[in-house]
């Protein structure tokens, strides 16, 4: 079966532009996570979706960041008015349910110039 798929794999954008990053989780997985990994740094939690519950947005660094998950499947992370400090690898993961292992996609490398 297919794993977690993220697109695009690479994105270069100009400062001030908006970007959308997409995540296709493993079919049937109810939990979905977004993380950010800056160069040489650890994984920083951004947002978590579980089924139809309200998402946990506690990790979003500013109101320029938002995410949605449509139909309990595909998720989109949107960054508005991008800044250079937003440059990082954005990772998505999905899990069958809370407490079980999460499987990661290959990430989207975002570069803001």
């Amino acid at each position, binding site marked *: 079966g297919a794993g977690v798929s993220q697109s695009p794999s690479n994105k270069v954008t100009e400062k001030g532009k908006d970007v959308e990053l997409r995540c296709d989780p493993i079919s049937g997985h109810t939990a979905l*996570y977004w993380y950010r990994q800056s160069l040489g740094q650890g*994984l920083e*939690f951004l947002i*978590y979706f579980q089924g139809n519950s309200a998402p946990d947005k*506690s990790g979003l660094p500013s109101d320029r960041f938002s995410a949605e998950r449509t139909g309990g499947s595909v998720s989109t992370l949107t960054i508005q008015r991008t800044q250079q400090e937003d440059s990082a690898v954005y*990772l998505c993961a999905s899990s069958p349910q809370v407490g*079980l*292992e*999460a499987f*990661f996609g290959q990430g989207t490398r975002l570069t803001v110039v």
Partner: protein
Amino acid sequence: EDQVTQSPEALRLQEGESSSLNCSYTVSGLRGLFWYRQDPGKGPEFLFTLYSAGEEKEKERLKATLTKKESFLHITAPKPEDSATYLCAVQMNNNAGNMLTFGGGTRLMVKP
């Protein structure tokens, strides 16, 4: 504040030289501890889940163990292909949320 600390930050081994990586945590109510391997330019690859103190999991040259305060990833007779960054993450069993909190990772280099 819940914390996950991995040590050492970097580890250089000769092929065949066994060693252990440490992941210590200070969380209130552990739901699960997860080990991942991450190769450069790739997403983390799941290795093990541990749920309770005393539990052990094995896969090829890797064995993960768990106590109430820390987890170890033991690498027996490593090979160059084991070179990667190893990450541990914890999930809490409380109202703090269901996110995975990651440590900073251990960068392992195995020389032939």
